[in-house]
Each structure stands twice: as C-alpha cells, then as structure tokens.
C-alpha cells in the first residue's frame, strides 16, 4: 500500500517537475486523480485468493476441469484462478525473465529444474509442507505415491522443489510394421537397410542436445551439473565402458551418411512424420497420435535401437525426463498455490491427464490402469525407464551440443580423420564446461 502510494506520488511529481522544468504550470489535477486512484486500488478485499496457472496448450481443457474440481474441494474459500498458456519446454525462459510476474503454479520439464532452483524461482516444498495438512497429506505421502525416479527428478540437493505430474518425457522408435520387422527395429544398421529397401527414410533430430546425448549416454559417457551451474562432460575421453568418444562420433557419422537417414530439424519431427516420407522416426509420446494416423494398423513403437561401435552393439540411452508442477517462490498466496499444484499432481488428476492428453502418470496407482498398460507408445517409453538417463546439464550445455549435433547431421566432420574428431569433441567439452559468464 505504502509502495503503491509512493509510486503514484512519484508519477505525479514527475509530471509536475517536467512541466515546470521549463517554467511553471498548474497540473494539480493530475496529482489529485492519481493519488485517488492509488487509494481505490489499495482497498482490495483479502477474501478472494488470486492464482495464475500456466500449462501447455493441449492441457487447457484438462486444467480448466481440474481447477473446477479444486475449487469445489475447497469450497469455503473464494478463488479467482486464471489459466494461461505456457508450454513446459519453454517455461524456464518465460519465468526467469521476470520471476515475480510468472504464474503461481506452472508446469515445466525436469531438465530445467537446476536453473530454476539456482535463480530461486521455485518454492522449497519442505518449507511449506505443513500446508498439505489441508489436503490430508504429508510431503512423504506425495513422495511415496509417485515413482521414485520422478521424485528424484524433482529434488535438488536433498530438497524437493516440485510435484511430479507426468513421466516418460523421452524419445523412442516409432516404425511402420509393414516396412520394418520388429527384429530389424532393434538395430540402426538393419533399420536403415530395411528403410533403403522400402525407399523410405528414417528420421531423427540431431541438432538438439536432448537427442544427441543418447549415443554418448549409451556408450557410458556422462554429463553432470555442479552447484555453481556449470556442466561437467567427459565425451572427449574414454568412457568407463571402454569406448572412445571419437568412435561414438564415427558410428554416428556412419548413420548420418546413410542415404536412408534424414536429420530432422529440431521441432519438425511431426511435420516429417506427417509428410509420409519416413518408415521410422525417433520421437516421443506426443507424436503417438500422428504416427498412428500416418501408418494406420502398421503403427508400432519400441525402445531405441542399438548402434554399432567397432564390432560391438551399443544400446542408445535416451534422456528420460518428467514433467513437474512448480510453485513460484514469489507467489502471493503461497499456501493455496502449493495446494493447487499438489491437486494437479494427485492420482485422480494424473489419470485424467492421461485420458485427455496421453501423459504417462508418475503416480504408482494411476500407472496400473489397463488403458495405460495397453498403450503402445507408453509401453515403448516406459520400457526405457531402466536405462533412460535423467539429463543433468547446465545452461551452457545446449548451444554447443546443438552445434555439435548439426555438424554430425550435416557431415561436417570427416569420419576418417581421428584427430579432427577429437578436436571437435574437445571444443564441445570446452564450450559445455565453460564457466557461466
């Protein structure tokens, strides 16, 4: 209240000084009205709880529904809940531009959690867990109700920062049964051979750090995140499995140089799928509908294939993430925001979320539903849970990794020149591990 009055006063003074800066004039009117306005605005009633909620485009109807239920659950409290559109994948960018202006509750992909926590954007749930009593729960109940990996993905330094809402945020292989047999689909070489025979393409996105890492993770390489936000990376050396980074790159180049391979620009997977040029594509559950539509009854999905390094077959390990529901650390109605976020992530909502948008639940009970078990895409995605990697990287990872992926995709590296490949990897590691500036 005091702040607002002052800002109004300031506004008025500014006008006044500017006017008289070149003489004098009467502008008492302006200052009068603006002060009055300040008083009006200040007399807000404390009864209605105002909350904003952000969710992905496809989830708008689902969220409207959940909010309605939330309001009827806590019917003795008046709410004014606004739902806005913000996709999980870009939530961090929007939130960090101005944390205080961001929604009270929003959904984000788990790979953004480190940056969000470091910027202090997320509420520490341990500190506010007391409020869950209103929902007849404790934080431990939430932790035990969900798949343990999802809780781990929501935890930084032993503190829980968000509620898991859906899992299997990963990518796997969709293929056309009529062109590629299930045994062929196990291995890049056979997939590409089959595709070539059918005159079709195999699509994968390489110019994105999210996809390109799967080859390295598979070969036993790692990335890690330090407390100061810098990234660690060992891709230019030899992995614990005894595979050299340069050999991984060579295998990748082997794949990309195959005429049946198509490097798909980040974000264009669905387009490519729709165009009908492909008989196999690496993508996630969000493309299940498109794939089913394009291939009809020949639609199938399976875990990622293996790739050949030397004479060995190496399983690709995808980045495996979760979608989490965040509570803004600067939320005005912190308590209610926490309750709303919890409500969105409870068993009932998760089940509903699967029904409306095919989002795979993290809630253990919700996962047991028949419809989930029977879903082809979900089966493929969850079959990777054992070897999927929760990708831990800092902000400096993405651009160098993207550039590296693009170089591989475009064949800018010669597969014969070991020294050159090593140099590329060294530069990649340099860029990724650089201190934040």
């Amino acid at each position, binding site marked *: 209240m005091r702040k607002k009055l002052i800002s109004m006063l300031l506004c008025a003074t500014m006008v006044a000084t500017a006017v008289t800066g070149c003489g004098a004039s009467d502008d008492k009117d302006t200052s009068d009205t603006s002060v009055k306005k300040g008083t009006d605005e200040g007399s807000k009633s404390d009864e209605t709880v105002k909350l904003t909620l952000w969710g992905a485009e496809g989830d*708008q*109807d689902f969220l409207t529904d959940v909010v309605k239920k939330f309001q009827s659950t806590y019917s003795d409290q008046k709410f004014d809940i*606004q739902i806005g*559109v913000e996709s999980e*994948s870009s939530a961090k960018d*929007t939130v960090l531009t*101005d944390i205080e202006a961001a929604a009270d509750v929003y959904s984000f992909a788990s790979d953004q959690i480190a940056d969000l926590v470091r910027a202090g954007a997320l509420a520490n749930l341990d500190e506010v867990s007391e409020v869950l009593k209103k929902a007849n729960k404790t934080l431990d109940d939430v932790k035990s109700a969900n798949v343990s990996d999802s809780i781990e993905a929501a935890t930084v330094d032993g503190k829980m920062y968000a509620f898991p809402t859906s899992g299997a945020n990963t990518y796997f292989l969709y293929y056309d049964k009529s062109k590629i047999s299930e045994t062929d689909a196990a291995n890049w070489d056979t997939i590409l051979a089959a595709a070539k025979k059918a005159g079709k393409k195999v699509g994968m996105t390489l110019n994105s750090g999210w996809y390109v890492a799967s080859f390295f993770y598979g070969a036993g390489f790692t990335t890690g995140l330090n407390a100061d936000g810098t990234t660690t990376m060992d891709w230019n050396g030899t992995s614990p499995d005894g595979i050299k980074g340069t050999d991984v790159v060579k295998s990748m180049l082997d794949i990309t140089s195959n005429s049946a391979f198509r490097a798909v620009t980040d*974000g264009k997977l669905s*387009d490519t799928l729709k*165009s009908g040029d492909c008989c196999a594509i690496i993508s996630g559950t969000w493309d299940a509908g498109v794939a089913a539509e394009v291939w009809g009854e020949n639609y199938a999905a399976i875990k990622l294939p293996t790739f050949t390094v030397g004479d060995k077959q190496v399983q690709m390990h995808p980045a495996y993430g979760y979608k989490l529901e965040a509570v803004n650390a600067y939320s005005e109605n912190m308590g209610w925001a926490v309750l709303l976020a919890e409500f969105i992530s409870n068993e009932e909502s998760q089940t509903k979320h699967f029904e409306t948008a095919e989002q795979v639940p993290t809630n253990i009970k919700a996962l047991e539903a028949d419809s989930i078990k029977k879903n082809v895409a979900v089966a493929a995605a969850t079959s990777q849970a054992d070897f999927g990697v929760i990708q831990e990287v800092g902000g400096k990872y993405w651009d160098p990794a993207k550039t590296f992926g693009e170089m591989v995709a475009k064949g800018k590296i010669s597969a014969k020149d070991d020294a050159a490949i090593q140099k590329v990897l060294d530069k990649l590691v340099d860029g990724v591990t650089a201190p934040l500036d």
Partner: protein
Amino acid sequence: MKVKKMKDSRLSTIILHNVLIGVIAFIWLIPIVWLVCTSFSAFSGMNTHTFFPEKWSISYYVKLFHPDTVAQFPQWFINTFVVACATCVISTMFVLMVAYATSIMRFPMRKPLMNMAVILNLFPGMLAMIAVYFVLKTFNLTNSYAGLIMVYSASSGLGYLIAKGFFDTVPRALCEAARIDGCSEARIFFQMVIPMSRPIVVYTVISSFLMPWMDFVYAKMILNAGVSSKYTVAIGLYKMLDKQLINDYFTQFCAGGVLVSIPISILFIIMQKFYVEGITGGAVKG
C-alpha cells in the same frame, strides 16, 4: 517532347516494357499467392509437396471465428484495434506537436533537443526493452493495454523528422503574417499548419495505427500472463507457429494473416499517395 513520345510509343517496346514489369510483379507476388492459397487448404499443417493445396476448403477461416484456447482471432482483432486507435491518437499528437515546435517555432533549447533525439535514435531499441518492461512493472502496467499503448506511443516524439520536414515547407511568411495579426501560436498550429499538412497528418495517423498490428516483440514481452484472449493479433498469430502448434495451426495462421492483411492493405493503398506527397514534400525543401 512530342517527338520523343512518338519514338517511344512503338508497340513492341511498350509490350516488352510491360511484360518486364509483369514478370517482376509476378516474382514479387509468389509468396503472397502462396499465402492466400495455403489459407484455403483443407489440410491443417504445412503442405510441402505442391504449391497449390491438394484440397480446397474455407474451413480454417470458419475455425478462426470459432475460438478455441489457442486461436481467439475475433478477440485479438478487437484488442489490437483498441490499442491501435489509442496509439494512433497519442502518437499522431506527439509527432505533430514535436514537429511543429521544432519546425515553426524558435527557442533556445531547440537545437540541443533535436541533437538529443538524433543520439537516442542511434541506440538499438532492443536493448532498452528489458528496462522498459521494468518501468512498466513499477507502475503496474504490464499485462495491460495501457502499458502497451504507452510503449507504442510514449516515445513516438522521436519519429518527428518526416513531419518536421513537411512543416518546413509551410511558407514562413504566412506564419509571420498570422502572428502579426495577433494569432496565438496555438491557433496557427491548429487552424493553419495542420489543415495545410493533410498528407503528413494522414501519413502519421496511418503509420502509427499500423504499429500494433506489426509488432510482436514488445507485445510478447508486456502481455506475458499467457492468457490467449488478451493477445494482440501479432502475438496470437506468432504463437500459432510454436513447435507444438504449427502442425495444427499453420493453415489458420495463413488465414489469419490474410484477414489482417486486407484492412492493412487498404490503409496502405490510401497511405501510399500521402506517403509519397508527405515524404517528398518534406525532403525537397528540407
């Protein structure tokens, strides 16, 4: 002159000349034709196989007027229209006021102020964006049309040069005579200079009216609550091309683009004449 004309008007050169223009115009229009054609496609995503859609339909125009959570075109149109009208009024006033003061009047701070304007115009506007955002936030104006209008019009005074150039062509003697007759400056401004400067007034009005229809950077920054019904046309359409949405909304985007372009084109055609008169009127006398 006449001799020349007769020589030039030989039929073959005329045909050749016009064919040349036709070819250039054709190249220029290809993307526009593609836009219009695609907007009538029956397919929601992008067609990458053929130039013309395989199936024609107006269903995506119909869809534009049946809002869903992403596309609320009628609402966006109204929002933008409101913002544009307000921007237009304020900007035009500011531009004409500054132009008159710097062109017709003489006062000690005139030159320093004009130089200041030149210097400010050299800074990249992008840079100031974050700060503008926080200024608006301080006054509680983010996520409001008032804030957006302020951003579009508050600094419009800096764009006074063309109008000033035009006012410079108003004969000094006329103003002097009016002053001697005891007219106040205000009367000279409103009753003499403005009516004489119709081209530049129209030009300023239209160009400031168009600003909110074109801008997506500031609008995206200021209307950041994610509420689709509050968007302007520019951000609304821009967001349709998000990675997650482009497949379902590309044709709608084209349809929306066509619908926005129609009124703007009409304004442009009107403005074209005044633009030519205004800009050269200003430039010639300088």
